[in-house]
């Protein structure tokens, strides 16, 4: 008994971590398990195992077009937000200029505003301008809320760079442009790809802002939300689980590649 309590106090943090991760993954595991449910109409009660939902992920109306929209919007928004955000991050991380404090505040504010306010205020301006809600208004909205997260992520990476590396390049007669191209940018690149991944995940999973500005366009989260009451098909679970494993795969592959690159150097 005494050794048990000692083991427990020594491994308290580890026990706690297991509990924390279990809490995080219970709903994911549930979603995954019910993607194999042989459901009829609504996927609420376990009725038996089947591969059918995974064999026909597009087997129900609208689910795959919704997924397609989400991916297209996510890629476009990520592309634009990563470029705009990285430029701002370099300005903040590398230059002294007037208006720095204002810029910092402007970057922080969208993260500090509830999504509901962001979505609602965009809707009022789109309505006032008489713009048609749909694909492009969603992209505009997603770029807006992704920019700040990209800036913060890339800026942190720039701040963590050892300034001596750039000085060394200059000492070795590289001009400013060459130093940037061959030293600074490659060092910041992992931060940029991390920011892009974050932006995509925020865009792909966004519901509240999208719901305000979508018009008749359906994204995957909108599909899930609107079908939840009438009974969600297991295909939604299939897509949710598949995206989860795909993301894990991409991240792990990225880690392995970056490690190999480091070793190669």
């Amino acid at each position: 008994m005494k050794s048990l309590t000692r083991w427990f106090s020594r491994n308290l943090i580890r026990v706690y971590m297991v509990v924390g991760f279990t809490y995080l993954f219970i709903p994911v595991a549930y979603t995954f398990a019910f993607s194999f449910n042989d459901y009829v109409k609504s996927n609420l009660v376990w009725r038996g195992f089947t591969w059918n939902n995974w064999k026909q992920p597009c087997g129900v109306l609208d689910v795959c077009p919704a997924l397609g929209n989400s991916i297209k919007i996510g890629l476009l928004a990520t592309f634009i937000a990563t470029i705009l955000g990285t430029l701002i991050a370099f300005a903040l991380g590398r230059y002294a200029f007037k208006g720095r404090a204002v810029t910092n505040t402007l970057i922080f504010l969208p993260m500090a505003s509830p999504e509901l306010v962001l979505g609602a205020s965009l809707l009022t301006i789109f309505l006032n301008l008489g713009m048609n809600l749909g694909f492009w208004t969603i992209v505009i909205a997603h770029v807006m809320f992704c920019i700040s997260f990209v800036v913060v992520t890339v800026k942190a990476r720039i701040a963590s760079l050892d300034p001596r590396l750039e000085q060394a390049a200059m000492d070795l007669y590289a001009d400013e442009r060459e130093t940037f191209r061959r030293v600074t940018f490659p060092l910041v690149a992992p931060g940029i790809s991390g920011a892009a991944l974050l932006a995509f995940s925020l865009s792909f999973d966004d519901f509240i802002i999208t719901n305000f500005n979508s018009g008749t366009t359906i994204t995957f989260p909108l599909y899930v939300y609107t079908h939840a009451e009438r009974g969600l098909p297991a295909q939604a679970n299939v897509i949710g689980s598949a995206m989860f494993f795909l993301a894990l795969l991409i991240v792990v592959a990225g880690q392995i590649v970056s490690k190999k690159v480091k070793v190669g150097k």
Partner: protein
Amino acid sequence: MASVVRSSHATGSELKKKSLIPYFLLAPGLIWLALFFIAPIITLVGTATKTPGAGIGEFVQTYRWANYWDAITGSAGQFGRSFLYATIATLLALAIAYPLAYGIAFKSGKYKNILLVLVVAPFFCSFILRTIAWKQILGQNGPVFRLLLDLHLATPMTHLTASAPAVIIGLAYNFLPFMTLPLYGSLERIDPRVLEASGDLYANAFTTFRKVTVPLSMPGVVAGTLLTFIPAAGDYVNAEILGNPSTKMIGNVINAQFLNTQDYPLAASLSFILMIIISLLVMVYIRKAGTEELV
């Protein structure tokens, strides 16, 4: 995101000065934010003081500032409930995330990166899907409820879902990664030698944790609690899926006014009030916590 903590060395002395380049770098992104973040907020404020016009669904600007007062008095209960739920959910998330972040930062060795990825990974399995999963796990047909029935801790008449605790559990769950990552960011920066020094000065593990680790991780605590509290206070999805009519939050009211009732002035004034209250709370909180720069 792990870096939504103070980064003081970004303002080092080696920054380049007197050049137009930073403005060219800033312009595209800031113009985007001006057009689609600042301008909409201003429009929102303008919409809030309109009153119904002649036609159906038409509103004219009459600068009726009393709209704000009507909005507050009409939804005081939902405002109060939102901030109460968000506060409890934030504390719950902090209690779960702190040991998690501590373990990842100090106890996980070479698995650090993988564990960090696992914290964010649930994001990719749609958050609505996961909230619906909670509803079914805690629901009448779910495993938790059946276990409680077997243990005679529940009767078939009790409910775990459609209740305030379910909404709070959902909120704490949804924003857990936003809490964990900044906490990890600030814990990871702590120099282990500082902790050793504390031990050398005869502090036991608990005293070291309380007097050294916790104060040094404060920037992460501040950033994490803000990134959890703010979205939680404005959320309506958890209250919609896991709650009942008496757990409605201010988000539910705003959403219904905008998209169903289409009373845009009321919805706009409610949104603006929500934003002002949150900003005030954030300012007071940051001042108390003594962290000036968050980004």
